[in-house]
């Protein structure tokens, strides 16, 4: 099986979020960057498991500057065979999807994995866009992927439950929790990652269409109002009269 995993880089979950240039750009000062957890723990690891079961290759692709190669090397250390970096500022989901589609359209992958969303912009768009550009079926929020003969069986999260779907390759899938268990790269992986192929490609022409013009952080929350644990009537009164939510 020929598998492609799209990996993105995001600020770590606990990072303090701030903006610079009068709210025009994200301020990376003091922020640690990580591989987007959905891409790393679920998409990449499930792709590696499928390769181990059925043979084949796992390629990772990332759109971003050279500084992000640490994230790509980590994916190689976890077990990907080779990597592609598209040398472009990933300023919108559409830009990213166009770049990945340009590579994938000729390469003939059986499955293209994305994460269910990036934890910074929370767009949840790239997977569906890729499927649209490549005219492939798309299953989002997949929590399980197995094979029965040639056909794939996918479990997908829906509101209040789940749905089971069967389909044949090729397709695009976005991975949610449950698909696999996180793998920590071992020493051998880290050493071999240094020599695995990482190809840098120039971007194709692409357009943004939806541009973030300015950013801000929400106003600080007003201090919590404490209610005596013995007086729940008071809490009910506040929720009714002040907060007006019941």
């Amino acid at each position, binding site marked *: 099986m020929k598998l492609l995993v799209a990996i993105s880089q995001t*600020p770590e*979950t606990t990072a303090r979020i701030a903006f610079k240039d009068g709210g025009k750009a994200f301020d990376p000062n003091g922020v640690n960057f990580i591989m987007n957890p959905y891409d790393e723990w679920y998409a990449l690891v499930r792709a590696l498991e499928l390769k181990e079961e059925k043979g084949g290759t796992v390629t990772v692709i990332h759109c971003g500057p050279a500084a992000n190669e640490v994230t790509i090397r980590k994916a190689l250390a976890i077990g990907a065979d080779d990597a592609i970096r598209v040398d472009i500022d990933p300023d919108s989901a*559409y830009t990213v*999807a166009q770049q990945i589609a340009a590579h994938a359209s000729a390469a003939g992958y059986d499955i293209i994995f994305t994460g269910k969303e990036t*934890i910074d*912009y*929370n*767009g*949840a*768009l*790239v997977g*569906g*866009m*890729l*499927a*649209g550009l490549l*005219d*492939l*079926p*798309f299953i*989002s*929020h997949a*929590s399980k992927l197995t094979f029965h003969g040639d056909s794939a*069986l996918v479990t997908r999260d*829906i*509101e*209040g*439950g*789940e*749905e*089971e*779907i*069967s*389909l*044949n390759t090729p397709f695009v899938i976005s991975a949610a*929790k449950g698909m696999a268990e996180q793998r920590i790269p071992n020493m051998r992986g880290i050493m071999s990652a240094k020599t695995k192929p990482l190809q840098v490609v120039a971007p194709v022409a692409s357009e*943004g*269409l*939806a*541009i*973030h*013009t*300015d950013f*801000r952080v*929400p106003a600080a929350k*007003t201090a*919590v*109002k*404490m*209610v*005596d*644990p013995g007086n*729940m*009537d008071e*809490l*009910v009164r*506040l929720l009714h009269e002040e*907060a007006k*939510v*019941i």
Partner: protein
Amino acid sequence: MILVYAETQDGKVKKSALESVYFGAKMAAAQGTSCAALILGDSTDGGRLGAYGAKEVFQVSDPGLASFDSQTFAKVIASVATDKGATVLLLPDSSNGKSLTGMVAVLLKAGVITGVNKLPEVKDGKLYVERALFSGKAFATCRIDSAIAVLSVAGNSIKPQQEGSEVAVTPLSVTVPVSKTKVIEVKRSVGIVPLPEAEIVVSAGRGMKDPSNWGIVEDLAGVLGATTACSRPVADSGWRPHHEHVGQTGIAIRPNLYIAIGISGAIQHLAGVNSSKVIVVINKDPEAPFFKAADYGVVGDLFEVVPKLTESLKKFKSAHH
């Protein structure tokens, strides 16, 4: 024209559809245009969308739309949007909505923003849309640079009101492409408002000690008509079903009221719930980080506080019938 894809379930329009239609009608009024709704499949109550602001309701009924397939649905929605000359297409931010948004945007060559929770503005002929990012830790304004915009509307962003009357449903005939996927089974807990749609959520964490203690949480949810949720370790250890797990790796919700019981308030938990309008935290530890994100706090033993709260609410409910 503003076109709204009105999601249905079991032949009825969903709450998210009422919200999106009402949202679309408000946008249309501000832009001097009209709002229309689109239903796919065999729903029977599409006409009521008229009351929420849809001037027209279109419906494509076709056996090929009986179960959800993102590719098929996206192609049909995009073709109707093109035919009708829509300038804005609204989709729900639900699980099916999330499967459609990116694909529809590509098919229409449209600028797209997900999770919109405020009515966009038009300046110099361009649409400016506000959205949350970093799981609610920041906001951004986005400018749409395409002739048509695709927006997904976050749940509970607007309170739909009945301001008009029912309209007749207009059947459309559209070629429905053959689906390449097959839905084998849908498992959904019945009779419960799904978490992303719930207006009140009662959520509990590891402070509950044991799954057998959940009765007091369910009683509280019962009087409030709330949906129950839980923290991640609670779902991971099988105390509660996986679909109740909220947070960074679970579901992101934005109810009017979120009551957190015996949950410490780790940043990854907050990521899924901090867009709630009002947060109540019940925790025995006054240093629990959740209090910093709360509107109302109760420091106390949940096994005493929660039943008392339920009693007080029962009294309140019977006084307010």
